[in-house]
């Protein structure tokens, strides 16, 4: 091991120096005064146990855009199948395509090494929601692009069994992958070691999906589709947001503290009121084009803020080791 000789000698030197010079008891050193003692089952000076998420503004925005794009594709398919509404199908496909184009940009911008974004497609791992999401986004973009291209050809007079078949296949697969795209983000943050996220892992996917439904309906309303379908969907999403908001407000466990105290909590509450009761009441009481547009804007704002609030709640949760310890002790004693 000749090549390593110098470095091995250096490690020996570190050990000798430590043994000779820095034995605290040998040197008669005491702890820094005054002692800050750790008692009972307190954590380590209140320092965090888990790391806070490092994601920046792009990620919650991606959750928002991905949800709208995903559910738009579902609406495009349903409109084609039942509504026989070619204009809505076309607009919804364009919304989905636009979203599918923005999403990768947001995800790449958030990477620590953006130039290596293609490494996301180096492997496919079903056990990693991030990998499932990356592949879903690729599949979704492809399906929606195919559906949109075939649809545009049909509208320009190239309607034949081949283009019609392709547009149906694209819309169907776009709807399926769109649902995954709108729902998986809840799993992405729910199935982690972050205390508040993992505690709410069952409520997160429906919460994010509701945002996608109301967001897609609202976007199409703002594009001029003030039809009954978008009204129903906007109503259903606002109702779901209201129920989930009540659920989160009433779950007073210590792990949910970031949803009840601090910046994340107030963002969460204000956003929840906008997307939930706010949008709901606007739709019920102000039945006009302006009312529906206002309800759409109200929901979109709330739903966007909710995603930021979830990320900030994760950051706050990582800084609360007490809640983590309490929950884990409870889990351990109940499993024994």
């Amino acid at each position, binding site marked *: 091991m000749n090549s390593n000789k110098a470095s091995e000698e250096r490690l020996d030197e570190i050990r000798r120096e430590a043994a000779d010079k820095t034995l605290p008891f040998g040197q008669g050193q005491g702890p820094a005064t005054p002692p800050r003692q750790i008692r009972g089952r307190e954590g380590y000076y209140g320092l965090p146990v888990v*790391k806070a998420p490092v994601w920046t503004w792009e990620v919650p925005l991606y959750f928002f855009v991905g949800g709208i794009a995903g559910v738009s594709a579902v609406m495009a398919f349903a409109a084609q199948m039942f509504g026989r509404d070619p204009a809505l199908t076309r607009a919804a496909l364009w919304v989905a395509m636009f979203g599918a184009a923005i999403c990768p940009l947001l995800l790449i911008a958030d990477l620590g090494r953006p130039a290596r974004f293609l490494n996301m497609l180096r492997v496919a791992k079903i056990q990693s929601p991030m990998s499932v999401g990356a592949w879903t986004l690729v599949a979704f973009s492809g399906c929606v692009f195919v559906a949109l291209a075939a649809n545009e050809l049909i509208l320009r007079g190239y309607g034949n069994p081949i283009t019609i078949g392709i547009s149906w296949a694209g819309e169907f697969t776009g709807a399926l992958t769109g649902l995954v795209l709108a729902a998986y983000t809840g799993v992405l943050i729910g199935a982690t070691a972050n205390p508040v996220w993992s505690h709410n892992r069952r409520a997160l996917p429906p919460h994010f999906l509701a945002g996608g439904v109301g967001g897609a309906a609202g976007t199409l309303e703002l594009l001029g589709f003030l039809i009954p379908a978008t009204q129903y969907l906007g109503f259903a999403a606002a109702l779901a947001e209201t129920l989930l908001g009540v659920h989160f407000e009433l779950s007073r466990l210590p792990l949910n503290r970031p949803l009840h105290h601090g910046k994340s909590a107030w963002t969460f509450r204000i956003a929840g009121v906008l997307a939930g009761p706010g949008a709901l009441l606007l739709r019920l009481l102000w039945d006009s084009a302006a009312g529906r547009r206002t309800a759409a804007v109200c929901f979109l704002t709330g739903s966007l803020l909710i995603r930021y609030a979830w990320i900030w709640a994760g950051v706050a949760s990582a800084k609360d080791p007490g809640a983590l310890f309490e929950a884990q002790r409870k889990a351990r004693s109940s499993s024994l």
Partner: protein
Amino acid sequence: MSVSAFLTDATLCIGCKACEVACKEWNEVPADGMVWSGLSYDNTQSLGASTWRHVMFLEQPQTAGPQLANTKDPFRWVFLSDVCKHCANAGCLEACPTGAIMRTDVESVLVQKDVCNGCGYCVVACPFGVIDRRPDDGRAFKCTFCYDRQKAGLIPACAKACPTQSIQFGEIGELQERAKTRVHELRERGYHDARLYDPQETSVGGVHAFFVILGEPENYNLPPAPEAPSAYMKSAWASALISAAIVFAIVWLAFVL
């Protein structure tokens, strides 16, 4: 190759931080700032992207443990060198979407820095708060278990530099036995709160770095019941599937009605 492990013994640690220094030097880990924390002599505070060994300093109102001379109050000063646990079911490895984090032939968990694209998902997947993203570099880093040294037949730098054998490196079965014997011995000598921290009963499924500690794991910021995110996968995906089906039905209904 055999399965490697670390046994880190708080009852032997003298808080010299030779492991921190040796780790930084061998692995060429960059400096990551220095603050006077006021928390005993712990100015490192936690493991992170550029801290792969972290010596904790616990000041406790106890009698059994390393005592200070010239003090009548019950007071003990315990040290422990924390490190990546190299979990049997590693959250970071499962979460990594690029395959940058891999299991080596000594069953340690290694980040391949030429593959990592800095997505940050491993950071929220670790139940021990070990791995983190280096802000200036952009990639995620953690203890490599000195895999390069192990491949060359050498022991990890921290274990080599430890002057008191508080950090022991070896084959996992042998070290687990040694740890049990040590805890038994300590208890017989009056250290009644001596225990082994080796979470095997949770979804983490055992670790390749276990600890002999005095007192509660919480006092060392060691989670009492760490769960790998894989434990949450089934319920989260089930919820996603059910709610997606409901959304599909509602969207159809909206166009049928």
